[in-house]
């Protein structure tokens, strides 16, 4: 059964079509990734799904309830972790959680139990009395998540929740989200970090210029580019001189130049690498060589000709 069904969602700001007919659905208990570069339309899609923006077209149904007809019921089912740390710095973590819990109608013993559970989930029960302004960036992010868990939502929507934090905190957050999903919570996770989406999500929608350009499980998406690997080369100078020679090498399928790098797509990286290095060293000095197995970054590059973090 689908927890959320988004159909033909559209939103324009003047002449900018930020979301142009986005459709996807997420099954109960599934972790769905919305992957795309900055400005692709991820946050606008999320804001439309949350009812923070009025949609120009389309429908959003959560748990069988239509957002435009019964937004209160939809909002009660959804927990939202915004990209920014949407907390009050001069209040303690507990005071923040009390406030956010009350925003969802919680009170009394139920509120206190929910706060204890949420703090336990994000591992900050022992720091609950401290003010948010004294927390590190990672700890703030964790309380930011805890605030969305208080009313035990069926669907948790996370909009780039790991932006600007240290790797340790990032790992903690990813493990937390994984744990929530394992306990049956449906997750929508937007990010431009493909590793996060690969780690957390079972299905992924790739969004660009306000449209879903590909969707499926990780395997289905990787199959779009076949089992091709990519060799990334960085040369000291004049890389474009060797592009034609590289294209002539047997089993090299595609040669592109992007962001100062030469990217070679091939199904047999080990076989072509000696010939590639030989061609390159004739014309320039090789500064670095990297081999990439098929991943979502490659899929995005294949579909759009651009890198996710361009």
């Amino acid at each position, binding site marked *: 059964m689908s927890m959320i069904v988004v159909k033909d969602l559209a939103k324009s700001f003047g002449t900018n079509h930020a979301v142009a007919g986005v459709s996807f659905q997420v099954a109960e208990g599934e972790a769905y990734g919305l992957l795309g570069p900055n400005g692709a339309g991820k946050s606008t899609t999320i804001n439309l799904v949350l009812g923070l923006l009025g949609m120009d077209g389309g429908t959003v149904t959560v748990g069988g309830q239509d957002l435009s007809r019964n937004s209160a019921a939809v909002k*009660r089912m959804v927990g939202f972790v915004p990209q920014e740390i949407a907390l*009050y710095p001069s*209040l303690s973590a507990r005071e923040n959680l009390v406030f956010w819990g009350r925003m969802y109608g919680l009170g009394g013993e139920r509120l206190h139990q929910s706060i204890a559970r949420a703090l336990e989930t994000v591992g900050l029960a022992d720091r609950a009395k401290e003010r948010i302004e004294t927390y590190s960036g990672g700890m703030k992010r964790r309380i930011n998540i805890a605030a969305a868990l208080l009313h035990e939502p069926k669907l948790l929507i996370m909009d780039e929740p790991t932006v600007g934090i240290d790797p340790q905190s990032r790992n903690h957050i990813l493990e937390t989200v994984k744990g929530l999903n394992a306990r049956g919570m449906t997750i929508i996770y937007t990010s431009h970090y493909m590793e996060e989406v690969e780690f957390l999500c079972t299905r992924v929608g790739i969004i660009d210029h306000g449209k879903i350009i590909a969707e499926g499980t990780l395997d289905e998406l990787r199959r779009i580019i076949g089992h091709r690997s990519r060799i990334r080369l960085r040369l000291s100078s004049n890389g474009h001189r060797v592009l034609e020679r590289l294209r002539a090498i047997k089993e090299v399928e595609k040669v592109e130049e992007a962001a100062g790098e030469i990217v070679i797509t091939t199904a047999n990286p080990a076989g072509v690498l000696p010939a590639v290095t030989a061609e390159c060293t004739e014309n320039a000095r090789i500064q670095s060589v990297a081999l990439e197995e098929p991943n979502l970054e490659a899929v995005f590059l294949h579909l759009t000709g651009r890198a996710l973090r361009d």
Partner: protein
Amino acid sequence: MKALIIGGKDLKVFSRDRTGLMMNIIMPLLLILVLGSALSNMVSDKAPSIGRFDVGVVDESGAGGSAAVVSSFREVLSQPSLKDLLNPFTMSRDEAESAMRAGKLAGAVVFPKDYAAKIMSGQPASLEVLFDPGASYLKTTILKAVAQGYNDTVLAVQFAMQEAQAQVQAQTQAQAQAQAVPAPEQQLAAEMARRAAELGQQISAKLQAMSPRIREETAKSSGVVNATQYYAITMTVMFLGFAGMTGLQSIIQEKDQRTMGRILAAPGSRLEFVAGKFLGVLFIAASQFIVLMVGTHFIYRVDWGSNWTGLFLLAAAYAITMSGLATLVSATTSNVKAAVTVWMLVIQVITALGGGMVPISQLPKSMTRIASVLPNYWATMGFFDLVSGETLAHLMPTILGLFAIGALSLAAGAWRLARDQERRG
């Protein structure tokens, strides 16, 4: 309910802000002390000596009966107890306004077009009082008290006349039924004449009684013009304006920190959010008002009078006006620093215009004329009135006017905020 939670949260956030507390609580107490001590020579705390001053009497009705009414009013003013205070001149409205603009007239009492007709037909009627905003507060207080006292007396007499007439008619009809003969018109006329004579005596007594009452009010109002008391009121009004700025900052911060988006993602409406922010400013302003009132009372012995309901209603109305205006400003700007700077500047300028820095009586007429259309001037005058013993009913037009400005600007701000959120996403 959600609005109350948001308002309560804002009060808690405010209480944690040391700079804000310093700015909104400690600073006004210090300013009251400094200004009250430094400028005490400009605001006398002794019983006032204002001498005789000119007042206009404007009769706009010019119809039957009005001459008698206006004449009775002039008689009141010519009584010995008022004669050494008021010097009445009959004039047109234009002449009165022109004289006030020139600073030659403190004020004028206007008998509206239908005043005499209403009195004669038993309908409620009221006098209009024009006054120069730059004139001494004491003079305008006296003039308003005289006009109000006269109007009250006329209305009381009018009511008594109606009652008497009804009683006489009822008695006459009863007699006529018992005797099965029509009531003689002469009998009715005689009874009316007797009652009229009695009421005439009552009018005279009431008019005589008015003078001591005005004297008493004058004496009471002299207590207002105590330097510390004066600045306690003007500084409280200024800092209630700054409470509006706290609300402005708070709304902009909610937008910037995206806590506003998070609140709106929870069940509830945008209206509840705006109402919550509005309540927050109100809670902050109320706390600030209580602390300043209690603080100035105990530290500087300032007498705030006994009309607590009026004081709190007026403070709330003014805080609502300023928070409504703050909501509007915050909704129309994307630059928090610029908005706050402009707001602080505006508050200080209107405070200066409204007599917050230098007493109103010392300001040029042009400035006080500008000030008279500003909400802080209304609030300051309202507090003066309440402290000098005015009733809540007298202040209701001011309070309702402030509420209306607050509500309108709040509605405009809420609409703009919603539109901005929709555009920004």
